[in-house]
């Protein structure tokens, strides 16, 4: 008897108990590109748990697992929309559940705009496989050739006779079949769901208050915690006086806590109470004396001064070097040498950080707005010395993520407090905590040197001085930050013969982390501002200049589209037009911004046009929404807010001084999507980097004034 038949018999026994079901999952061996499709028996043979992405029960109800976080970017729709297409079921008839954190789903870190591009090929194949098994089961039942049968809207149909069977009546037989190795995928032209602007399944939940976010989780006996954390990283608690805090009605307990930010501890004092309000009142009443010894009391001025100095004296670690840049610079007749500066930023998700944890008898369960449930599981299992399966991580809807909620600090803190208190705990971060504690997007300075000859770039040298967030995760310090060229279009590197890109090491104790579009969010400003300066130096139209340096058919088509939709070639004198084009997570976005003089002073933005090339995509309406949202976020980061540091602490605490774009700031934005057969690129982030350089390039076009430092004020520029 071979193992396969044992496990298959086992499987049938099990499925007999739990109700018949067709469940299919993916098995992805390490380093393999393509997953193997497995059912419960196949999973047992491999000695693994089935990661059931698709489950169809005897009533024909289809349940699809979303293994990624839903933070606004649309994974809650994208994953099911992909599966529904090849499975031939209407999206609005499937149930969608979030996966728990578990390695069996592969990476669940919802970052790098990777949900679709990282999994769509396997998901398409998986769903086509399930469909094929259902068709085969029907053909067997009817004793007809399988080629005479097809699937449609949750049914298999026998073409010649018109006989029809609901998937539910087929699952018992289908589940006994071996998943076929080769299935035929639909052609894009035949899609009825992918590529269509279907309504998001989460929208109705978000218009009547029923979508459950992290803060909405409740558990019987749950208490609330608010933590007064040291405002300086690496700061400790020297002592605290909780006399007044204990008198606040509803306050139950006060204790010192230690949270790990990466591997650095940060201490604080937690107030445990019966309601959020009591916890917040208690936190306010605390008197804590901090121990800040060993911490550098940095200020923003100091940070940028050091960056600028480093850029003048240090050649940095080379990431890319081609041709002879020094020689070309020396020979160039028209030379530029400029510095761009970009700010630290807070993620400021609309839902402040929070997490609910219940630690009991050597296991802990977590519920929260979590971007990376598998990372949280790993981290807590390691730090609390619990086996992975004893750390259960549940994702709620996320009120924004932007990279911040892919971090492990706040779930870990909740677990630690729950363990200490012995009750389920919801840790609530105030907006002030959220704004000032970091980790932040690093603020970065860039020195760009270049020369033009015969209307073309003869030398291009960029050096970046900013914190390497990889260092916080153990990246070696003698290697350059490999994100130094993020944002820069690859075809540029083909046309610019003398090119050098280097990372000038720069460190501070300020914790830093991914922020929407990561290094492209700041690099894009430097690269594409400088490209504009070089175009001006070469006396070329900025669009033409980029065309001449981007020898790539796909990009040329995108530039055609951008020029066409923005009316670039018919712009009139007195109108300021600027453009930029950046790459991020395998997608390229070009933008044109139009500005004019504001009668009340400064400049106003009249229009933004964006052309997104993300290759294969799922939902055009979501793609557009993501680009719109990215532009608004970029607008805020370019013109309204920055995290400034004084005495080692973040200064701005809430939205009255950390200003956010509001509806009154939003110009018309038109988004266009390129149609082609290329592989899927990212969607949630790539719309961000091109905006700020397109804007400042437009301001230059209008006023002759070059903005090289972000943020700046539109009112006074």
């Amino acid at each position: 008897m071979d193992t396969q038949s044992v496990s298959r018999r086992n499987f049938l026994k099990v499925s007999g108990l739990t109700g018949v079901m067709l469940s299919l999952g993916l098995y992805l061996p390490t380093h393999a590109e393509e997953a193997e499709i497995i059912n419960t028996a196949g999973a047992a043979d491999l000695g693994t748990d089935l990661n059931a992405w698709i489950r169809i029960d005897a009533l024909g109800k289809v349940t699809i697992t979303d293994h990624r976080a839903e933070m606004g970017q649309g994974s809650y729709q994208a994953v099911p929309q992909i599966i529904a297409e090849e499975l031939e079921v209407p999206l609005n008839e499937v149930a969608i559940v979030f996966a728990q954190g578990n390695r069996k789903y592969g990476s669940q870190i919802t970052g790098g705009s990777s949900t679709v591009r990282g999994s769509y090929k396997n998901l398409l194949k998986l769903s086509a496989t399930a469909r094929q098994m259902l068709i085969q089961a029907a053909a067997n039942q009817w004793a007809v050739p399988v080629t005479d049968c097809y699937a449609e809207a949750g049914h298999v149909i026998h073409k010649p006779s018109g006989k029809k069977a609901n998937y539910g009546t087929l699952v018992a037989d289908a589940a006994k079949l071996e998943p076929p190795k080769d299935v035929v995928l639909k052609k894009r032209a035949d899609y009825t769901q992918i590529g269509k602007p279907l309504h998001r399944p989460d929208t109705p939940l978000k218009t009547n208050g029923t979508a459950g976010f992290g803060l909405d989780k409740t558990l019987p006996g749950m208490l609330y915690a608010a933590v007064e954390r040291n405002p300086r990283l690496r700061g400790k608690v020297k002592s605290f006086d909780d006399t007044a805090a204990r008198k606040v009605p509803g306050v139950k307990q006060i204790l010192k806590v230690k949270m790990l930010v990466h591997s650095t501890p940060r201490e604080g004092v937690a107030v445990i109470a019966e309601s959020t309000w009591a916890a917040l009142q208690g936190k306010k009443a605390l008197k804590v004396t901090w121990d800040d010894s060993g911490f550098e009391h940095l200020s923003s001025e100091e940070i940028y001064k050091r960056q600028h100095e480093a850029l003048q004296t240090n050649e940095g670690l080379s990431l890319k070097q081609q041709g002879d840049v020094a020689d070309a610079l020396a020979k160039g007749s028209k030379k530029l040498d400029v510095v761009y500066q970009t700010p630290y930023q807070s993620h400021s998700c609309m839902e402040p950080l929070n997490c609910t944890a219940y630690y009991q008898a050597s296991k802990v369960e977590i519920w929260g707005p979590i971007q990376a449930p598998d990372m949280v599981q790993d981290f807590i299992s390691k730090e609390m010395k619990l086996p992975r399966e004893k750390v259960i991580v549940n994702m709620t809807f996320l009120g924004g993520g932007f990279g911040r909620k892919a971090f492990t600090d706040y779930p870990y803190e909740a677990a630690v407090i729950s363990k200490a208190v012995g009750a389920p705990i919801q840790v609530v971060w105030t907006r002030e905590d959220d704004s000032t504690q970091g980790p932040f997007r690093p603020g970065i300075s860039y020195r760009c040197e270049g020369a033009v000859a015969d209307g073309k770039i003869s030398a291009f040298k960029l050096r970046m001085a900013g914190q390497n967030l990889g260092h916080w995760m153990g990246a070696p310090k003698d290697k350059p930050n490999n994100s130094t060229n993020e944002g820069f279009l690859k075809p540029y590197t083909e046309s610019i013969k003398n090119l050098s890109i280097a990372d000038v090491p720069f460190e501070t104790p300020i914790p830093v982390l991914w922020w929407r579009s990561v290094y492209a969010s700041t690099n894009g400003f430097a690269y594409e501002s400088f490209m504009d300066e070089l175009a001006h130096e070469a006396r070329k139209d900025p669009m033409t200049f980029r065309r001449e340096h981007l020898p790539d058919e796909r990009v040329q088509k995108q530039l055609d589209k951008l020029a066409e939709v923005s009316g670039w070639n018919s712009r009139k004198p007195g109108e300021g037009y600027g453009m930029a084009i950046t790459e991020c997570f395998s997608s390229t976005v070009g933008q044109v911004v139009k500005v004019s003089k504001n009668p009340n002073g400064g400049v106003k933005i009249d229009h933004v046009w964006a052309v997104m090339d993300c290759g294969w995509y799922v939902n055009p309406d979501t793609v557009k929404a993501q680009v719109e949202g990215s532009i608004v976020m970029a607008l805020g980061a370019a013109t309204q807010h920055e995290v400034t540091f004084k005495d080692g602490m973040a200064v701005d605490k809430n939205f009255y001084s950390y200003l956010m774009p509001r509806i009154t700031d939003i110009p018309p934005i038109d988004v266009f999507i390129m149609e082609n057969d290329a592989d899927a690129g990212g969607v949630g982030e790539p719309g961000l980097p091109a905006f700020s350089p397109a804007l400042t390039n437009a301001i230059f076009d209008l006023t002759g004034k070059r903005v090289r430092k972000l943020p700046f004020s539109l009112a006074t520029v």
Partner: protein
Amino acid sequence: MSSIIITINGKDHSLDVDPQMPLLWAIRDVVGLKGTKYGCGVAQCGACTVHLNGEAVRSCVTKVSRAAGQKVVTIEGLSKNNDHPVQRAWQEIDVPQCGYCHSGQIMSAAVLLRDNPNPTDADIDAGMAGNICRCGSYLRVRKAIHLAAGMERKVSSRNE
């Protein structure tokens, strides 16, 4: 602590709470209606917007005592079937991204439209400037309010 009686979504609730507690936390933690959101706590973001006697207020800075004996409507009570014209317009246009701000956006928009059934872009901007959306769904908020205004007009002309 004495109890405070508030009519929330048409139902009377007797709350034993600190009268200083903001209405936001009373609604969320004591009554258990979680649709109203905490975003800033200082009347800057609008995520906590509810209707107090028909007017949009920031519940994070409204003491629960101020609502004593009054009528409060939260997002859960705006309509029975998720079909207030603003909610329908929001669904038609798929306005929400993360959705966290939209309970507040919708509650603000409902009052805006009641007071001004046919708003211009400028009216919408003025009426909605207190609601932050970090995901940047503003263009769609504008579009959806126009759409909802159209729906209101249709309903009222049918009623005439």
